[in-house]
């Protein structure tokens, strides 16, 4: 089982991101379970959504307390909510930011994890460019696909197509593709830095 926790703020599409991830997993023949943190969400309030992916039916209903991957849609949450709580040492982190882990003040924290599993992507900027609105979730899922290789970019695109009307879907798919390329390049650079 692969467990993903998504942190964001009400209105950023956190719940939709989990839903899309589950549809992408389903399209690849896996069992997937997505669910929100069930709060009475208000715009701007911290929100959490969850997604589990597995090759077997998923029965577990507890919230994800030990995620394999974290997607952080809003870096301002880093100092407000215990977003990293329970993350496994081999876990993946993807943060929506144009800054680096060092610039976010996370250098020491990041040193406890595998560098090639830590990614950043300016998903809001990418969304503004393609979608025209600051909704980073499609771009983040593209970045997630590149970082974790748990799902393909094609499946992310298919899930987006299923959810949105064609024009909106295509803009979001373009955002996902750019983020995928961005994170892929980042991973390549991280790998060569490690090798060097």
């Amino acid at each position, binding site marked *: 089982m692969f467990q993903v926790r998504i942190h964001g703020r009400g209105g950023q599409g956190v719940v939709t991101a989990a*839903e899309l991830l*589950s549809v992408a*997993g389903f399209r690849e023949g896996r069992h997937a379970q997505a*669910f929100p943190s069930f709060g009475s969400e208000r715009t701007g309030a911290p929100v959490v959504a969850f997604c589990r992916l597995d090759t077997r039916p998923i029965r577990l209903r507890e919230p994800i307390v030990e995620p394999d991957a974290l997607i952080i849609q809003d870096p301002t949450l880093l100092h407000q909510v215990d977003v990293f709580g329970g993350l496994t040492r081999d876990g993946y982190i993807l943060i929506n930011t144009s800054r680096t882990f060092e610039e976010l003040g996370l250098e020491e924290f990041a040193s406890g994890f595998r560098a090639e599993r830590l990614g950043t992507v300016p998903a809001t900027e990418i969304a503004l460019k393609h979608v025209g609105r600051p909704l980073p979730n499609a771009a983040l899922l593209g970045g997630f696909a590149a970082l974790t290789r748990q799902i393909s970019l094609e499946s992310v695109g298919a899930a987006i197509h299923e959810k949105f009307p064609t024009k909106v879907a295509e803009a979001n798919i373009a955002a996902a593709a750019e983020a995928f390329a961005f994170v892929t390049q980042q991973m390549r650079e991280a790998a060569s830095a490690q090798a060097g």
Partner: protein
Amino acid sequence: MLKQVEGSAAVAEAVALCRPQVICAYPISPQTHIVEGLGKLVAKGSLAPCEFINVESEFAAMSVAIGASAAGARAYTATASQGLLFMAEAVFNAAGLGLPIVMTVANRAIGAPINIWNDHSDALSQRDCGWIQLFAEDNQEALDLHIQAFRLAEELSLPVMVCMDGFILTHAYERVDMPTQEQVDAFLPPYDPRQVLDPADPVSIGAMVGPEAFMEVRYLAHAKQRQALELIPAWASEFKRVFGRESGGLTHTYRLEDAETVIVALGSVLGTIKDTVDEMREQGVKIGVLGITCFRPWPTGAVRTALAGAKRVVVLEKSLAVGLGGIVSSNVSASYMGSPDLVHTVIAGLGGRAITRHSLQKVFTEAIDGLLEPVTFLDLDYAMVNRVLKREREQRRSGPIAEAILRELGVVAAKIG
């Protein structure tokens, strides 16, 4: 067809496949997505003929459903929590009149304090209302139970409540196998009412009944529910024949072979319990699960048989009989032939408190080690409770409890776990 959809969307589509003719809707979380989904299907014309009626309250929702059903229409509504309480008088009437209405209850806590999250207080508060009450373990079963519910309701001329955990199921995206219209039509014949308001053949429904016959009418309601205990498994078999999967029935058992400890529960928490039991089985613990699918009528015989070999029983329930302890456990105790001391009640998940494998394994182990009190509250913050009690001892005007606890916790955002 396999689909990855929200639980509410799956239920809306399944209800539509049952060809309801009248749907009464009044919004309340976490049920709202279901009637919204049905409203869209009616507006599009893909669910027709069907009258979608926006009513002014839950009391009106059930009253309109009663009228529609008495006029011979297949009637459906959905509600939760305070909404179910607000319609309570009409809920009893629907059962007393023997009208086969189907209603989804997206289970949610009851206030005060106001709380929109899941537990079973709403449905269990209506346990003696005369409706059949079925509890879904996952979204596939929620979908399937609705199809079975219409059949069951109309064959027995009794209303059926399908209970699914609010948010945990209603808002969860998971895989479901959506049946075809042909399959549902093969299983569910058109509604052929036992009683109908027909101008060509007039009757009155809802007469006043005095002491001379009231007992008999009530007895017949009871007898009909006990009769349902035989029909429910038969229809679950019929369902399997048409749809090719097990769903519904009275109970589900899991790893009961040689189980010395049996955990009894309702609804979606059974999934987490089964995962916990698998882990404990790997450690050599003889433990199994009895899931109650049909809570009303209470499946006395099936429960008794399932618990026959148990040395101890732990009833884990998302409900509380304030001043007594467990509601489900009271029913279980009445069916268990062993000593009542061996039935433990664990109250869990009230108001949406997360139920984790970690806490379950701990409480099950305590039961096996003989350390469990007769009634336990899972993950209760006793330090917090004791501070409140201390304040109440020391101060006459100790103030409202809920607000004081929230202030102490400094809650700004719901915790993850």
